């Protein structure tokens, strides 16, 4: 009884807290005109994309180059679907911002994770970037490759247009002393990733921009954009600059009311990871694990096991809603909660990829309640990844490089991307499990997976790592006014 009283008190205290702080009752509208478009939508109308990684030689090179492209950086305004044929987006590393003329004091306002970057002994251990995924093997972003300053993202309606843009960009690099470290290619837009599953279904909707009634997915703008209240009703740390640094008043004022200029407003952190998927190994492993007693392959059992590992069927239908077979009518359904009807994972395994990446209401405290959902809201990501490499036809084996250019957008790398990666996907003890990292993306070469108990789990053991990291970095994707400020900045 005393415990229950304390618990009630704790919940009450959370409410009182919010009241006392006088949180804004209404979420401010997102200034879409000042936000780079990718934050608000994934450019489904522009199926071709490539991502050049750039390096500047100094402010004299970077500023004018940026200025030249400024007007073409796509904004988040509602587009006329047919009209748009291309879009540029740009994001920077701390070194890139320095090259553009920001000083150390100003950079200090960014988050620790962004400033220290994705590479380092602790961070690699934390993210599971070890063994063959260790940064020393990376193709870009690692200690043995050129330091990246900027990530340019180019989207186009046709392949021909994309090549034109690429040629034009290369000319501009030469003219401005910008060097192209590498170009990350993507495949023609497809919703299906290389293991054969529709990806990117569960996306948060930004309160103050997207119109949605979804209680589950409506998330405060501060979780994805700096300068807005987040799910705690607070403003995330961001670089605030003295007015003298911005005499022309390009940057917006601090929405929290200080006299400073907010460099962060309408900007956000972009996490990019090149994830190579070993499709032959994935298929071979499924086959091995599901052979019949006579040694023959069992296609149906393979499909079921794969779906159990993912937590969704190839169409995207959740195992929670379609536990026995794929059901296209459920492919887009995304409002379900696990706890009440599936507390032990009898439909959708506790350890399956999607139930880990977004457990909804399935985690303490008080699984199945608003309290649990409330905590879950602190760990959401906008995903804007695209597939790269050719699909591998069924029955074939090759050694080609294919996978996902994983892109996540979040306001707090530590609480969102890194937390999900470490504590939900990679932790073998996630939600009370033992020895089970994520069966699809987990960083383990000797992984285990417990499918739905029937009524006891028939463990799959000795699972290899199917996904390796071959490059990655943390970037800051500024708002449009901040880009203009950067392009005119003198150190």
């Amino acid at each position, binding site marked *: 009884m*005393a*415990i229950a009283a*304390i*618990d009630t*008190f*704790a919940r009450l*205290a*959370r409410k*009182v*807290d919010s009241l*006392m*702080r006088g949180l804004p009752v209404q979420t401010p509208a997102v200034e879409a005109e000042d936000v780079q478009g990718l934050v608000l939508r994934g450019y489904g109308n522009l199926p071709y994309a490539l991502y050049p990684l750039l390096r500047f030689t100094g402010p004299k090179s970077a500023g004018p180059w940026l200025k030249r492209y400024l007007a073409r950086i796509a904004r988040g305004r509602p587009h006329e679907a047919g009209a748009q044929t291309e879009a540029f987006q740009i994001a920077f590393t701390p070194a890139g911002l320095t090259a553009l003329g920001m000083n150390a004091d100003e950079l*200090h306002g960014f988050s*620790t994770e962004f*400033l*220290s970057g994705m590479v380092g*002994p*602790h*961070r690699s*251990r*934390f993210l599971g970037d070890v063994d063959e995924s260790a940064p020393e093997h990376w193709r870009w972003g690692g200690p043995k490759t050129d330091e990246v300053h900027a990530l340019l993202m180019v989207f186009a309606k046709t392949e021909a247009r994309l090549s034109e843009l690429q040629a034009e960009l290369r000319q501009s690099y030469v003219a401005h002393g910008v060097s192209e470290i590498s170009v990350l290619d993507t495949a023609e837009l497809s919703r299906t990733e290389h293991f054969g599953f529709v990806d990117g279904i569960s996306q948060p909707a930004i309160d103050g921009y997207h119109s949605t009634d979804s209680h589950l997915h409506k998330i405060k703008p501060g979780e994805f954009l700096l300068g807005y209240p987040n799910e*705690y009703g*607070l403003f*995330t*740390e961001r670089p605030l600059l003295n007015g003298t640094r911005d005499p022309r008043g390009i940057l917006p004022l601090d929405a929290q009311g200080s006299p400073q200029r907010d460099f962060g407003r309408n900007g956000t952190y972009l996490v990019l990871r090149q994830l190579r998927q070993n499709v032959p190994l994935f298929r071979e492993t499924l086959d091995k694990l599901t052979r019949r007693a006579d040694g023959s392959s069992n296609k149906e059992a393979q499909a079921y096991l794969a779906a159990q590992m993912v937590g969704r069927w190839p169409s995207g239908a959740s195992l929670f809603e379609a536990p026995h077979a794929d059901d296209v009518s459920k492919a887009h359904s995304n409002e379900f909660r696990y706890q009440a009807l599936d507390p*032990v*994972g*009898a439909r959708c395994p506790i350890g399956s990829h999607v139930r880990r990446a977004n457990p909804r209401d399935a985690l*303490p*405290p008080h699984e199945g309640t608003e309290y649990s959902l*409330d*905590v879950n809201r*602190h760990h959401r990501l906008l995903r804007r990844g695209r597939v790269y490499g050719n699909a591998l036809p069924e029955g074939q084996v090759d050694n080609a490089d294919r996978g996902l250019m994983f892109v996540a957008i979040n306001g707090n790398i*530590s*609480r969102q991307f*890194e*937390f999900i990666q*470490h*504590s939900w996907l990679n*932790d073998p*003890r996630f*939600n*009370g499990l*033992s020895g089970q990292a994520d069966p699809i993306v987990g960083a383990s070469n000797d992984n285990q997976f*417990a499918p739905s*108990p029937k*009524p*006891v*789990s*028939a*463990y799959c*053991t000795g699972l290899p790592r199917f996904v390796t990291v071959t490059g990655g970095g943390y970037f800051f994707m500024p708002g449009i006014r901040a880009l203009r400020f950067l392009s005119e900045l003198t150190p």
Partner: protein
Amino acid sequence: MPHQEALTIIAPVAEEREPELAEVMRALAANPAQNDVLAFGALPGCHFGRVLHLPASTDLSGQKIGPQLMLLSDCDGSAEVHLRQLVAVAGDGLDRLFGSCVDYPRQPSPENRLAFLQKRVQPVKAVYVHRQGRGVEQIRREAELRKALVTWLAEQRFQGLSAIAIRAQIIAHVRASGPLRWALEPAEGIDAGYRLRNALDALALPLGLAALGPVVVPAALLLLLLIRLQEQTDSMQSGRPAPELVRTLTELEDFAAHNGFTAGGYVKPGWVRRAAVSSLLPLIGWGSRHLFTRDSLAGVKSIHFARWVPMDNGRRVVFCSNYDGSLESYNNDFIDLVAWGLNLIFSNGLGYPSTRWLVFGGARYEQEFKNFLRRHQFPTPVWYSAYPHLSARNIERNAGLRTGLQGHMTEQKAQAWLSLL
């Protein structure tokens, strides 16, 4: 079955000998479980252990506090007996570890080593134990049980069998296999002496309140009012922790299922805050012993052991815990589940994010709170866990697995039990 106690030793260090101590600490940090200084792994019934070298510091009135050496462990049974075992196991290793401490015996012997340490034992009132009575041996054996069952299950085919039938087969397997048969016996109850003392201790608070209520309640309200007045002007320190400190701390984190957390700081100046700390710590201790006894510290289920150590005549408080997962997730649990509880005690610390009425605000200021904790953390390179691969929830589930080998179950209960596997 033993209960668990906490051992805390604090010894001042001779400043000129600190480099020597630092070297011993490095040797110890290389492998806290096995080494020739103090092998925590050789201490029977030791759940967690850590050694800290606190550098010299200047208190709020400008007075210097010299460097100190802290040894902390969480053990099965009495801390007194545990200390004797520690002296026996470490032997002359203790001379290296404590040799740089003020007044360490010049000609050490088992007797005067023990006497030296006994004299420096710090009584700690506020101690949290995830589950009283669950000893190291039990935790390890139940993890073995789970492992053995999972391995055996992988070879079985239960197609079409009911949960009850499968459970019966599992029980039969455990019975037939010699090395697992112990699991059919329920875990021993906690020792009677402890239970009696604990029952009396549980009564002490309500009885004390009943007797002294007319004095204590108004005094507490007055104290709260005074605190509220001070909160208006308390200054909050903000700002990111130094990058070097973060680097030093993170290099030591996230190797095992859990991490050791050590943080400390000065109590805000004035008698009001001191009085708050000295009355709240015993209350927290009482709550931990009698309320939060079932695998949860006010909703946080990821802490194995924790304690609040008042130091330097109440000028400072050091908090130590052993928590599952990353610091980020630990912090999030704090903020989301038990902000009020943290505020209660930590808000008496200098620079804490501002609170209202002692329990509101504070930790709810997410980033300020996370920065505050990082800034006040002490790197703890010498840290030992007896079961580095197990989270607190793993331990609970393993215990549930064993308990479920006994008695009758309905089909539904049996299904729930099987899902622990």
